[in-house]
């Protein structure tokens, strides 16, 4: 409907142009980057490389989707990286140390990881600690919990338990599939689609946005505000845990702080996604597009042999630019 307004209104070309850039800036940026990298290195847009990019962003996207849900209620969950690490350790230990079955391990690991969400919700909703501080604390707590659980080291096939008992458990082949293309990509796309539908087409999704928009108005509208905030943090932990499972399958072991590196790209993806399509609020597809932008950039730069230690400069700068397009426009 907004497009219609702009078209009928000839005088608003400049404003229309700005708002077009704001809405589709991320998509345009992706397009230009792909064009640039392809010109520089034709192999960049080969199907196999594009698949590589999608595979490389799968875990980030799933974790970022959880973050997106916490953003809908106007919160910010910083503990997602730790939750992913924790789940990674849990699930690998169940396979390697206890030789449990695939389904049991995954379900149990995710269920235990939901504790992080519950603790976050308790601290934020009941104790009323600001979200950023509460999840900063739990980020450290569960990073520590994961490390304590693994005895400060990694777990992989053939390694003995902490008490020295030898182990025979292996990661089952079915589990390996989760981290491989195309399955990992399919999981990501499914998560994005389901959460998109949930947020936009169900009552509960709408309530999450209402709570995030004006908590007092939501409360007086009869919405069970505390319940929905709790729900958001649990969902956030759930998707972080799912990301942790994918991570475990991908690297085939439990590593110290394996999930920590996903926090910043996830935050970047979710915030870049805010402006997608002119929504101006957290949304699943925007987050996915944000993750694609980050992924394309990283892949292209690596192919152009930019040293890994300099990548962050470019990634940070792109994040700043994307955020600028969101917020600078908002200011007007």
């Amino acid at each position, binding site marked *: *409907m*907004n497009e219609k*307004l*702009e078209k009928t*209104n000839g*005088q*608003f070309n400049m*404003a229309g142009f700005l*708002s077009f850039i704001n809405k589709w800036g991320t998509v345009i940026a992706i397009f230009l980057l792909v064009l640039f990298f392809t010109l520089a290195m034709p192999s960049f847009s080969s199907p196999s490389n594009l698949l590589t990019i999608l595979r490389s962003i799968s875990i980030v996207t799933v974790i970022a989707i959880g973050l997106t849900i916490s953003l809908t209620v106007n919160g910010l969950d910083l503990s997602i990286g730790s939750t992913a690490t924790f789940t990674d350790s849990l699930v690998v230990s169940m396979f390697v140390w206890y030789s449990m079955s695939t389904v049991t391990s995954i379900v149990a690991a995710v269920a235990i990881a939901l504790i992080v969400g519950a603790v976050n919700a308790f601290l934020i909703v009941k104790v009323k600690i600001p979200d950023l501080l509460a999840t900063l604390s739990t980020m450290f707590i569960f990073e520590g919990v994961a490390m304590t659980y693994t005895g400060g080291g990694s777990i992989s096939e053939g390694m003995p338990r902490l008490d020295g008992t030898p182990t025979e458990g292996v990661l089952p082949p079915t589990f390996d599939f989760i981290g491989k293309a195309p399955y990992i990509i399919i999981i990501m796309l499914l998560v994005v689609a389901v959460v998109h539908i949930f947020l936009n*087409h*169900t*009552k*509960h999704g*709408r*309530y999450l*946005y*209402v709570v995030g*928009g*004006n908590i*007092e*108005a*939501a*409360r*007086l*509208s*009869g*919405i*069970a*505000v505390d319940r929905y905030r709790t729900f958001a943090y649990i969902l956030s932990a759930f998707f972080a845990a799912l990301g942790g499972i994918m991570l475990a399958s991908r690297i085939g072991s439990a590593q110290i702080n394996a999930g920590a590196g996903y926090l910043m790209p996830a935050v970047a993806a979710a915030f870049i996604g805010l402006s997608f399509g002119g929504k*101006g*609020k957290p949304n699943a597809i925007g987050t996915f597009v944000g993750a694609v932008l980050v992924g394309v950039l990283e892949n292209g730069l690596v192919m152009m042999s930019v040293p890994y230690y300099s990548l962050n400069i470019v990634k940070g700068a792109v994040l700043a630019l994307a955020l600028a397009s969101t917020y600078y426009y908002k200011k007007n």
Partner: protein
Amino acid sequence: MGQQKRTKLEMKNISIEFPGVKALSNVDFEVESGRIHALVGANGAGKSTLMKVLSGAYDHYTGSIFINDKEVNIRTPRDAKELGIDIVYQEVDVALIPYLDVAENIMLDILVNKMKGKQFVNWREVHASARRVLDRLGIKLDTRKLAQDLTLAEKQMVLIARAIAEERRFLILDEPTAPLSNKETKELFRIVRDLAYNQDVGVIFISHRLPELFEICEDITVMKDGQLVTRRKMEGLDGKQIVELMLGKKMDEEYLKHNVEIGETIFEVKNLSEKDDAVKDINIHVRSGEIIGIAGLVGAGKTELCKTIFGALPIKSGKIKLHNNLLNIKNPHIAVQQGLALVPEERRKEGVLVEEPVYSNLSAASLSNFTGSLSFLKPHKERVAAVKMIGDLGIKTPNENQKVAFLSGGNQQKVAVGKWLMADAEIYIFDEPTKGVDVGAKSDIFDLIGHLAGLGKGSIYASSELSEILAITDRIYVMYDGEIVKELLTSETNEEEILYYSTGGN
């Protein structure tokens, strides 16, 4: 006082557009210092926008502004302030800083703009100055109280205090009386007269309460649909004519109450007290089809009563019964499930989601009516209902997708009311629902409340506007100091009697 040279302020050919909305087209406006000028028009006519232009809130308008025939450039609030023009905004909570105290809020301009080279603040002096300003307004208010803890009326008074803290040539008051009752309004008018007649300030006064205009204004400008309708002396005009100029059609000033059969008692409140005794020992009942009024001055506890019944404030003791079932209302969520609805007083803070479109605001309290299996939304049904409510209440918006932030104040209020009129409740509680709403829309709201009564619903209508209470209720409870001091039959009472009891007489 002697005949000094008056300052003349003119706006010529002012136009401004927002995406999809031409808010002002070629408006001319003129005021003189030392006079009180009424600016009226229906909701969304462009009053606030015109005054925002004058006070430097927008820089993308076209047209020119002159002071004493000399063109001036106003593009920022600072430009306006330097020319001696200040405004009290319609949306009070936007203009106050919630976590600063009363004194800091009142002295904000001085703290921000007049510090010159000084680096340290003399807090004692700030509080003393704030106190002096409040005394001028005759307000007793602790200057150390935080703005976020004030009632709406108090917030309004703090904003007025801020505007008069410094000397001004022109002062714009955008619906300053909307949250005030007669008593505070009288006090404000005393100040306004003093500013105009003794200090030669030009006052521009926006209000939807016509009697007020006759009380203090000498000149009047009427706007409609972003255009100037007329500018003239107040003399010789009557209320009917003003309404006709505003709405472009004739309208009866008197509202005709619906004729509704009143049935059995359906809702009962017994010995209800709020946790901190904001309201004490409340006993009221509502019959089916009945509209009861809650009258009282600002601060009498009307809002607190509404919120306590609705579970938005904690209950200390007492019983609430609906259809003879005891309700245990611990929070608004339960209240709504049990069949209560509350239109809260502070629309921006409590009623609307300003960043969301009109349609999803309207459906926010009745979303379950628009969902199918698995809680999936039925967007078409939702929009149809929203569009109907937009029509019923005459909400002025380009379409149902417009963000509420972009609606005029009165139209935001209509959204806040419409949201609950769409919900299915047994008992509707209205807390000052017509605040900032124009006369035409007011009678639309009354009609919808009357319609609910016709369906056998009960309504509780709290307002400091006695004329409204007298127009639409069947029975009135008068509050004073957190208690109900009198029950009156609307058909057998009048303003004087209600006022008598609401000021503590018995």
